[in-house]
């Protein structure tokens, strides 16, 4: 048996599956200096980015003179100072680190001022003179698609396209008894993590070290090396805990660490670079706005027969992660259902607005908003209950996804939906609400359901792996060096539980260390809900290797067979005679004395997947996490105010390494989904963001909090990961918007197809329906 099979059947687990209190909480409660800005020391230089004020313009001239005259300013760097490649495009090489001849959005970095202190850097940044020749700009993706639109990139305004051709949609629609067709729109969402993007770069002899909050240490290393013209071994990246990330820091830190590194290398001094809140709003990636035309057909007995979908995702000025975000949306376009005939066409469109990118859900919230709204509209047309209709089509082992992938294991969406509906008494609750509404004049209640699935990690057959390291110290303590970043989600705590479980020691024995590119091989990024699954499996691999050594040395010490050794609570004993035992620490010391290996690297490798770009068919993701949300709302018909009273949630998590950490992720994800559904929206004027602060961009406060009274964890293990666990960090956000809008539809009869559903929109929609003049 390989170590993964062994773990799947391991009995008497002491940590895995149990709730622990977070080992990182105390330091955070005490406000200890964990974060990047806490590491600022005297003597560090400040870097300040000079940004474009134009949405689309040619750079005619840059004059550094006045800025250099500011006392304390040491240097002003522009594209021409870059020794390596001035290119940080992720999927497509379309994005310079510092703009060269052209700027494409308001807020684009053009130069960087490096000074002895913050005031000088800011003063200098104001005095860098940039002469522009303004170009016509385009702010709307549909406008950008017109042949007469200004060209943002030489290749045109379409960054990429995607397709899926599964079955024959025309035939499918001929078989359909009901057809529903709608266009859905979603908006730009800001991550709004409390800690803004912050980086420290420290120059060393022929080397540079980056310290920062981040999600992708090895990508940062690649980008810094590329921009400086260094070999990767000459760049060291050390991860610090992030004050929230949600995808934003996956994209942004690789784009700004090279700026700090460049400044550090040019000045020979450590450099501190921190975005102000308005910079984060104006110049950091956002959730892709979308326009989705969705046509679905079903037979009268409730079987989905065809979906035809056109997706437009607005990527803004640069493609960034857009091609992957669009692909993910395409691959999940039909929702977690089997649909025999699928046609999807996706376009990723450039505009002269801040670029879009990674954000919790990575393209899936938008497409599920459309897909799950459609499901309810079809159910309504068929006169069927939304849960019942979903159950008729839901993915089960052996059925195929949007892109024709046969899902064979860990497909617990049916179980999740059934259990959640049962637990909250869906039928009865629905009836109660309908009765309440018949009596109620002002307030209407509603209940709505939405399902979602989300492929874990990377897709389309791209290779995927992870790594970790475990060291057994001479006193029996364990140092765990993870490759997954600390964003607040607690992946590394999950890894540490796995390591402790395998080695048979309490969690307190494990010292958890974040990624350091000089300490472990590439573990790949912390995104796509992959941290626990891929990193945890690498951790299990390393721990399993060391367990073999511990068992061997203990069997020598206790003079018994290796099969008879058991380890629990840091005590190693002989199973048939537990009185023969030694503490873990003694065996640890003996490992050193007898020359056993006391440290191990662990690896995870994703199974090989196959994907045909011509049809969009293939094995898109190794495994999917499935989630179901049921939202209950109350609509104030006088004001249009929607109050989300509660969201119930159920998910197939494979195996819950820590049910409490999972619940924490659900809470946060639902809150972000709430903001996306009801309030959050970036507003522009001529390409400039107007609501660049927390007053004008409204994220949920404690008063907007949504209770999550019911959490059901379904555990259908995934055999490719340690203990069968899958990642959950993004999942609960994805079905939140459609669960809420389906509930609003249930309450009011009105289908909202555009996010956010503001009180104004609700108010006027209700008014219009009453046939009053607005």
């Amino acid at each position, binding site marked *: 048996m390989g170590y993964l099979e062994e773990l799947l059947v391991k009995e008497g687990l002491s940590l895995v599956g149990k709730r622990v209190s977070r080992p990182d909480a105390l330091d955070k409660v005490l406000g*200890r*200096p964990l974060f990047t800005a806490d590491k600022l020391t005297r003597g560090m230089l400040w870097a300040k980015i000079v940004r474009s004020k134009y949405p689309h313009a040619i750079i005619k001239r840059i004059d550094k003179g006045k800025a250099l005259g500011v006392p304390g300013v040491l240097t002003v760097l522009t594209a021409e100072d870059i020794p390596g490649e001035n290119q940080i495009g992720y999927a497509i090489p379309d994005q310079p680190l510092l703009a060269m001849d052209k700027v494409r959005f308001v807020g684009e970095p053009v130069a960087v001022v490096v000074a002895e202190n913050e005031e000088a850097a800011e003063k200098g940044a104001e005095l860098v003179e940039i002469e522009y020749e303004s170009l016509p700009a385009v702010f709307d993706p549909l406008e950008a698609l017109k042949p007469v639109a200004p060209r943002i990139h030489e290749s045109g305004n379409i960054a990429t396209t995607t397709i899926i051709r599964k079955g024959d949609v025309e035939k499918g629609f001929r078989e359909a008894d009901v057809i529903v067709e709608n266009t859905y729109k979603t908006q730009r969402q800001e991550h709004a*993590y409390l800690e803004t993007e912050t980086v420290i770069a420290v120059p060393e002899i022929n080397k540079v070290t980056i310290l920062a909050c981040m999600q992708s240490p090895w990508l940062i290393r690649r980008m810094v090396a590329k921009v400086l013209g260094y070999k990767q071994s000459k760049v060291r990246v050390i991860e610090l805990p992030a004050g929230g990330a949600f995808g934003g820091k996956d994209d942004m830190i690789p784009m700004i660490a090279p700026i700090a590194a460049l400044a550090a290398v040019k000045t020979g001094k450590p450099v501190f670079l921190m975005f102000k809140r308005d910079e984060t709003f104006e110049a950091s990636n956002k959730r892709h706005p979308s326009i989705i035309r969705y046509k679905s057909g079903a037979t009268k007995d409730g079987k989905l027969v065809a979906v035809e979908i056109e997706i437009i995702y607005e990527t803004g000025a640069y493609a960034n992660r857009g091609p992957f975000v669009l692909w993910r949306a395409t691959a999940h376009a039909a929702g977690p259902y089997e649909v025999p005939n699928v046609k999807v066409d996706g376009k990723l469109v450039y505009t002269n607005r801040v670029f879009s990118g990674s954000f919790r859900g990575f393209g899936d919230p938008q497409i599920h908003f459309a897909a799950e709204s459609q499901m309810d509209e079809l159910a309504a047309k068929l006169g069927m209950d939304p849960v019942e209709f979903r159950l008729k089509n839901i993915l089960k082992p052996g059925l195929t996804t949007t892109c024709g992938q046969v899902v064979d294991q860990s497909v617990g969406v049916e179980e999740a939906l059934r259990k959640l509906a049962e637990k909250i008494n869906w039928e009865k609750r629905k009836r109660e609400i309908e009765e309440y509404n018949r009596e109620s004049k002002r307030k209407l209640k509603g209940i709505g359901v939405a399902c979602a699935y989300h492929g874990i990690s990377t897709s389309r057959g791209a290779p995927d792996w992870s790594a970790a390291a475990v060291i057994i110290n001479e006193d029996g303590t364990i140092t765990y060096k993870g490759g997954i970043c600390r964003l607040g989600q607690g992946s590394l705590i999950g890894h540490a539980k796995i390591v402790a479980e395998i080695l048979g020691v309490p969690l307190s024995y494990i010292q958890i260390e974040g990624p350091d590119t000089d300490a472990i091989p590439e573990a790949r990024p912390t995104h796509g809900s992959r941290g626990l699954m891929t990193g945890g499996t690498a951790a299990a691999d390393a721990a399993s290797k060391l367990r073999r050594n511990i068992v061997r040395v203990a069997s020598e010490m206790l003079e018994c067979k290796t099969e008879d050794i058991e380890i629990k609570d840091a005590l190693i004993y002989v199973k048939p005679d537990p009185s023969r035992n030694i503490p873990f620490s003694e065996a640890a010391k003996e490992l050193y004395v007898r020359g056993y290996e006391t440290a191990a690297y662990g690896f995870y490798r994703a199974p090989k997947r196959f994907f045909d770009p011509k049809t969009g068919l293939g094995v898109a993701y190794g495994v999917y996490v499935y989630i179901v949300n049921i939202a209950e709302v109350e609509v104030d018909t006088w004001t249009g105010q929607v109050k989300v009273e509660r969201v119930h949630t159920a998910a197939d998590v494979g195996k819950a390494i820590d049910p409490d950490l999972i619940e*924490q992720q659900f809470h*946060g994800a639902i*809150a972000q989904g709430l903001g996306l559904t009801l309030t959050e929206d970036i507003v522009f004027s001529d390409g400039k963001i107007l609501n660049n*602060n927390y007053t004008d961009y409204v994220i949920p*406060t404690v008063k907007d*909090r949504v209770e999550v009274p019911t959490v059901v964890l379904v555990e259908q293990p995934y055999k490719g990961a340690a203990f069968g666990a899958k990642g959950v960090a993004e999942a609960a956000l994805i079905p939140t918007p459609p669960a809420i809008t389906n509930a609003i539809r249930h309450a009011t009869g009105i289908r909202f197809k555009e996010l956010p559903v503001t009180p104004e929109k609700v108010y006027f929609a209700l008014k219009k329906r009453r046939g009053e003049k607005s």
Partner: protein
Amino acid sequence: MNETGNLKIKFTLNGKPIEYMVKPNWTLLDLLRKELSVLSPKEGCSRGDCGACTVLLNGKPVNSCLVLAPQIDGKEIVTVEGLIEDKEFKALKETFIEKGAVQCGFCTPGIIVSAVALLREKGNPTVQDIEEALEGNLCRCTGYIRIIEAVKQAAEKLQKTS
């Protein structure tokens, strides 16, 4: 004020008297973090929107990014560093950890400072009291559910022991 426009101010920080030359435009947050290396107050927005920089000024929670350093002359400033032995803080520390009310932790010191002020004022706060006390403290990670529970439970703990 000296010829550079700098001012000498006297205040107490976490119980210790301090005299410091400050620039008139420094914020209290800058003074604490950059000059005095008191790092529990965090900078999230610098404009009074997020509450990550909350400290106690004469016992009242304030956004230290909105207070100018000269304004604290003669006043008393308390941050998490000065609350370690405080009974409200201790109760909150325990319940925030037990309840899992901490994710990234960037908002946490500010929230706890606001909660300490609440619990000192009201021994038995209602959920609405807690909401009002914490309304100025944003958290993007937790959805606030556990935070409310943790504050509630800390209040109950304190009631029991008093």
